[in-house]
């Protein structure tokens, strides 16, 4: 049933074609690709969008996006403001439908199965596809520890094993453990923005999602916090599939294996091209991508 996620872009061996005359972003991306060489085989489950369209009322915001996120990869979505990146990423875990009058067409396959299939329990889908938002949004009435485990309670999942272990594991993976281990009982509102965002990542991880969607997770954070979160992403990508929206080209180059470029051009947003990140940044096929990544517009 799940062969769709194995046959897509071949990971790893794309950096061999790296030309010497690359721009700096291409270098960054290539460096990252090299680091990933020889890593363990990717785990997790892939996600595939097929012909996704999205509407807000009558307004078509996103047109015909097909994109394959293979297991264990990090894909960056880039493009100018308003081109539909958020809209697209929200169709991937069915958050799009919370907006009244929002509609979508197409398919999103998780592990080969359409998450929009009739009769599917959408809350179960969201357990497998976690999401981190632009603005850190911990639950202020809960403590740090309660926040991390909030998902278990919300989704009424029985956790086999020790909850304290899970708590520690999630906070360690989110890169927050050392900073908060002595004040797990404190309220989450007392953390800095960057810490709150890592807390939100930890909160997603507690549900052991197979895919993690991040919509500009660092745009409200300082450079230091941003780097910490990028480290976290690099760690997480060993075990899960990650999709990240970012306006920061450097970040896209640093963290992602693949990059997809979106553009609206006055009409509905669509995907211009997708490819290995170092190729998108060094020798994109489309001129519009070239202009965008080199900072000539957008």
């Amino acid at each position, binding site marked *: 049933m799940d062969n769709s996620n194995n046959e897509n872009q071949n990971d790893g061996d794309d950096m061999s074609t790296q030309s010497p005359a690359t721009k700096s972003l291409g270098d960054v991306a290539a460096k990252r690709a090299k680091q990933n060489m020889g890593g363990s085989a990717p785990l997790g489950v892939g996600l595939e969008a097929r012909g996704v369209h999205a509407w807000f009322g009558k307004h078509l915001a996103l047109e015909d996006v097909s994109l394959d996120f293979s297991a264990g990869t990090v894909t960056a979505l880039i493009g100018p403001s308003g081109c539909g990146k958020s809209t697209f990423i929200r169709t991937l*875990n069915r*958050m799009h439908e*919370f907006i009244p009058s929002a509609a979508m067409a197409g398919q999103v396959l998780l592990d080969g199965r359409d998450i929009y299939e009739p009769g599917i329990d959408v*809350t*179960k889908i*969201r*357990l497998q596809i*976690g*999401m981190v*938002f632009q*603005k850190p*949004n*911990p*639950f*202020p*009435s809960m403590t740090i520890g309660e926040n991390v485990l*909030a*998902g278990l*309670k*919300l*989704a*009424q999942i029985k956790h086999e094993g020790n909850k304290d272990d899970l708590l520690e594991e999630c906070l360690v993976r989110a890169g927050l453990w050392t900073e908060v281990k002595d004040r797990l009982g404190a309220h989450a509102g007392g953390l800095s923005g960057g810490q709150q965002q890592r807390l*939100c990542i930890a*909160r*997603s991880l507690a*549900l052991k999602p197979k895919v993690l969607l991040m919509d500009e997770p660092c745009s409200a954070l300082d450079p230091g916090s941003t780097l910490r979160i990028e480290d976290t992403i690099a760690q997480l990508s060993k075990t899960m599939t990650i999709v990240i929206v970012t306006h920061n080209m450097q970040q896209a180059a640093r963290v992602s294996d693949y990059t997809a470029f979106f553009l609206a051009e006055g009409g509905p947003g669509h995907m211009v091209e997708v490819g290995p990140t170092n190729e998108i940044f060094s020798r994109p096929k489309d001129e519009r991508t070239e202009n965008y990544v080199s900072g000539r517009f957008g």
Partner: protein
Amino acid sequence: MPAPTAETPDPRKLTTKHRASDRLFRAVVTTFSFSALIILTLIGLFLLIKGFSTFKEQGLHFFTTAGWSVTQDANGKDVGHFGLSAMLLGTVLIALVALFIAVPLSVLTALFLTFYAPERIRTFLVSVVDLMAAFPSILYGLWGFFILGPMAEYWAKLINKYLGWIPFLSVPQPSFTRSPFIAGIVLAVMIVPIVTSVSREVFSQTPLDRVQAAYALGASKWGMIKAVVLPFGSSGIVGGAMLGLGRAFGETVAVYSVLNIVFRPNWHILFTQGGNVASMIIGQWGEAGKAEVSALLAAGLVLFVLTLLVNFAADFVVNRAVKSGR
């Protein structure tokens, strides 16, 4: 860089000359906006002056005893024995019964209207609930007397049969008509609109990012409401309940139509004896002599202060809930 000046000047006073028409209008709106305060103060003063003799004669007994009678002493002079305790107890009991029923009902209604109802049903139901608030209270009274009373009597018997071992649900004699319980139900229906609309207001301000966070963690709608909406809205619910309480304290006609007012403290809410300050006042008004009028106005002052306090507290809680975002 300019050299630091020796002295920073005082800020200048910013003035403008208002036109005559503007000044006139300003005077008019100012007067009118203070009129509410002035009227309220005058009413309070009036009650205090008229009721003062009662407070002086009865002292603390006015609050601790339950009798309400006028006798004549040896010289044929009227002597009043006035005590509000039964009425105060009854007022609080009825209001509590009303809250006990109205708050869950209103919170669930508000949750439905905010999170579940389709747009059209929402608009329709909101106007129905608002209409409930505008309904004359004598109509609630008549409904309570003719329709609800007999039904609620049956419920009261059931409750008494199965839960009668709880002290306040027992009855000294098997008589269940016109009880505080029934008055409480009528009041509950009357305060549902205010509690619902305050709850709705607060619920609708639940921060969207927290709602989304809950959903993204696989929460069902009910799970999201429990984790996000209710903690956020709890102080708003409390404030709404207190506004309802303020209304319940003061409600007169509807309670008067359904309650059997007896000047004897009664804890048994299912039993056919009750008290209520406001209803007692209209009940006694008709044939009151001079001394009794003073006592009734003193009772009015007690009610006035009670209602004022509850409403101030409610306003405070609601405003804080709406502003602070937690």
